[in-house]
């Protein structure tokens, strides 16, 4: 199942709709990395509101997404982690360290505009 990725101005928004297979997560990672280059996006917002579980593989992949996007000169933020999911994650020791998080899409966009404003122009990798 493909995760829809929308371009909103300088940002890409990936909205996860349902539970993802491992392959879907990998696709998402590769897709975002490619599109950031194509559109020269400044930021990526991954919305995981619909997910009822974030296990070790999912967290690992989200972390990888953030790393690869950063290598392309853009920011990533994960939004929409549900309270119950957050608590389960931390009990497993999955903290998404080094990855920005926000409550929802609105907060995520706000974060992005603050962040990219601060960073100024032109930091795009190839």
């Amino acid at each position, binding site marked *: 199942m493909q995760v829809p990725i929308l371009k909103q101005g300088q940002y890409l928004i990936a909205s996860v709709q349902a539970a993802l297979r491992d392959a879907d997560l990998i696709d998402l990672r590769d897709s975002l990395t490619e599109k950031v280059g194509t559109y020269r996006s400044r930021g990526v917002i991954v919305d995981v509101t619909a997910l009822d579980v974030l296990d070790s593989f999912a967290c690992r992949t989200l972390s990888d997404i953030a790393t690869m996007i950063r290598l392309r000169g853009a920011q990533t933020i994960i*939004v929409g*982690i549900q*309270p*119950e999911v*957050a*608590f389960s*994650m*931390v*009990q497993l020791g999955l*903290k*998404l360290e080094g990855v920005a*998080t*926000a*409550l929802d899409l609105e*907060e995520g966009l706000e974060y992005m505009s603050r962040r990219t404003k601060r960073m100024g122009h032109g930091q795009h990798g190839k």
Partner: protein
Amino acid sequence: MQASRKRKLRPRSQSGSSGVFTELVEHLRKNRSGLRAEWARRVTEAQLLTAMSEDEILTETTSIYDNYIDVLATGAVEALEAYARNLSEKIIPRGVETHEVIGIVLLLRDVLLRSLLAAYQSRADLLTRMLDAFEPAARRIIVTVAAGFVHERERIIHEQQAAIRELSTPVLPVREALLILPIVGVIDPQRAHQLTGQLLRGVRANRAKVVVIDVTGVPSIDSTVANHLVLTVEAARLLGATAIVTGLSPEIAQTLVTIGVDLDKMRTVCDLRGGIEEADRLLGYRVTRVNDPSEQAEQWEGS
């Protein structure tokens, strides 16, 4: 699970005993009104069910009696269990206690026994067989009713405790994007769990970016709860909120360090006021005084 163990009261035994049972049930049904009235009288005499009115006692004793005989006749105990739970739900808030419930069922058994003795005393052999049939069934009834009552009581107490826990730790939205969670009293693992749930739900509901968790009112924290606190801070971050812990006494701080809790994982400030100031800073607020407070008060009074 339960369906496969449909419990029967009537012992599956030799022929003739079912005849005895039938006669037993017949006798109890025939003398229904007399026996029920006798029982109600003895309940009042023993000063049981004082929390209930006479009418209520009449209604419930009738129901219980009929249920009792039904169970003896059919051997199926599920209906009795349901009835016992139902009745318990009604009478527990009225203050009826366990000893009263057990007491009235024992009295009923006594009334029925005496009635059997009176009716069949000349036929000792039949009487013995009747008692053999009656005894295990009657015992099972008492246990079922008592267990149902106790179970219901525990359920209600449990519910009340949860309500108290919820009330005792309100999550307070103070300013936009700022929540305060003042915790007072001892935190056991169950309460810690409930606090985390409340905090995280509060973050989401209030769109909080900063939560100040004040533990000034907490006398001591053990390692389980301390680790739980760290996890709560991490979980809040995943929802986009920064947690500040305030009010850690020097003793608690020492305990945490000794246990090995990584205090770097938590922002801590020594008191609540300091915590709110830190929160304001994080949120980009600056608090400035506009008027002299006494002037302000006059203005309010004038208008």
